[in-house]
């Protein structure tokens, strides 16, 4: 009697163990995905991948294709496509514990789209690499780097914690990070950059540029930028501007330094102001700084050439410096 009972328990346990192991191995195998749809050449595409790595590339035919492996915790995916609009999402459970005990496999996807499509991407802990999309791009992530190249039209790349690296972007550009760096090279069009904590390094031919930084420095090499606005709270801004004689520049800082390097034949009215004693340094002309009579402020006003452009810089305590290239 006793032995039968034991063996029943034993058998039951064994069955349970086998069942359990089956469940584990099923969960262990990540879901492979390889889906394509025929779409239009200027398809509007919306993508949602909560975590992982996503590479977006362009193809020569009018196909939308997503391939790779889905997040281990994913419940599936949704892909619908018709009438010029395609939507793809990796379906995740409502509560995902990101700092989980064991590191589960995240999505690893490659998405190929028609070059003329317009992409909108949203994710949380995800790295995105996108190239060649000409219809417009919008990427929003929380944690993760964004790498973008050869994009045109409206390009908006935003992350909270992450670096943005952009190359050869043309159109209306908007790059923003809270904690991270922005590196942009060979861009054209109109560009806006913002970093709260982090550095911005720009080498651009954009005609209009606006840069805002709170804590962090800005280094900008600008070719032919006729309208420039730079703003910092504590960070230092260093701009070298070439190939434009009468730029329209405005800059303001609280305690950071602004150093502006301009072509030797610059033709503009200059107005520099520091409110609480920041030094004003002029290497362009011999005009001198005037101290305010009733307070700690300093001003520097002068004109070169016909005074066609204008350069307005102001600081509270930061140093403002003008030089020639």
């Amino acid at each position: 009697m006793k032995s039968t009972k034991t063996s029943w328990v034993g058998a039951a346990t064994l069955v349970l163990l086998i069942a359990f192991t089956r469940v584990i191995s099923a969960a262990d195998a990540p879901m492979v995905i390889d889906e394509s749809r025929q779409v239009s050449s200027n398809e509007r595409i919306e993508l949602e991948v909560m975590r992982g790595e996503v590479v977006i590339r362009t193809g020569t035919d009018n196909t939308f294709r997503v391939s790779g492996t889905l997040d281990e915790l994913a419940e599936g995916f949704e892909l619908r496509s018709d009438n010029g609009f395609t939507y793809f999402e990796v379906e995740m459970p409502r509560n995902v514990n990101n700092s989980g005990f064991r590191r589960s496999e995240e999505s690893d996807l490659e998405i190929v789209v028609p070059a003329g499509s317009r992409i909108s991407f949203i994710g949380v802990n995800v790295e995105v690499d996108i190239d060649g999309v000409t219809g417009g791009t919008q990427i929003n992530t929380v944690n993760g780097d964004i790498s973008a190249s050869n994009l045109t039209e409206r390009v908006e790349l935003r992350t909270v914690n992450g670096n943005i690296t952009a190359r050869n972007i043309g159109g209306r550009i908007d790059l923003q990070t809270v904690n991270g760096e922005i590196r942009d090279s060979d861009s054209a069009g109109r560009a806006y950059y913002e970093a709260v904590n982090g550095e911005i390094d720009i080498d651009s031919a954009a005609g209009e540029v606006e840069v805002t930084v709170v804590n962090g420095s800005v280094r900008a090499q600008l070719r032919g930028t006729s309208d420039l606005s730079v703003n910092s709270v504590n960070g230092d801004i260093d701009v070298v501007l070439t190939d434009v004689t009468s730029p329209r520049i405005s800059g303001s800082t609280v305690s950071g330094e602004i150093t502006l390097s301009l072509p030797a034949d610059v033709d503009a009215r200059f107005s520099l102001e520091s409110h609480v004693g920041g030094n004003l340094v002029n290497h362009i002309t011999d005009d001198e700084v005037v101290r305010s009579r009733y307070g700690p402020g300093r001003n520097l006003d002068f004109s070169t050439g016909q005074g066609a452009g204008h350069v307005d810089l102001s600081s509270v305590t930061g140093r403002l410096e003008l030089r020639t290239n």
Partner: protein
Amino acid sequence: MSADNTSAIRRAQEGDRQAFHLLYQQHIGRVYAVCWRLLGDRQKAEDASQESFVKVWQSLPDFKGDSSFATWLHKIATRTAIDCWRRDKRLSFVEPETVDGLTELGGQTTAADNDDGRDLEQAIQRLPAQAKAVFVLFALEGYQHNEIATLLNIAEGSSKAHYHRARQLLRGFLSEE
């Protein structure tokens, strides 16, 4: 001594630079230590130390006297050092282990007064960036993992993992010939 300190703090809050000089002298040792250990380079540590004190000077009006001044000042210095460290980390593509100047400990004569101490300082500088930061903050500066998570903007679990790894690596380095 603490009575003098309170008056120095108050005078510094009102803009008295001599009083601030006093506070600087009292605290530069600890500030420089954390800066140097995090940044591994004499020049950077000096810059970071100065930046810390400028921030302290600017923040003095906000010090309400409800906590220890030393703790308050040190928190500012640590955050400043971490900001410098973060900037530094991003700019350098070379891992600390391969920097030559390390044999001279980044130009700094270590305050450690024996071989073991010097070995440990060197070993700490060989740690990978994140692990080093966590180790310095936990084992030397006395922060808890949840505080380190906030300071470095990482998960608490990551902080613990980095610390564990740092200890393993250090034990290994110290056992090398």
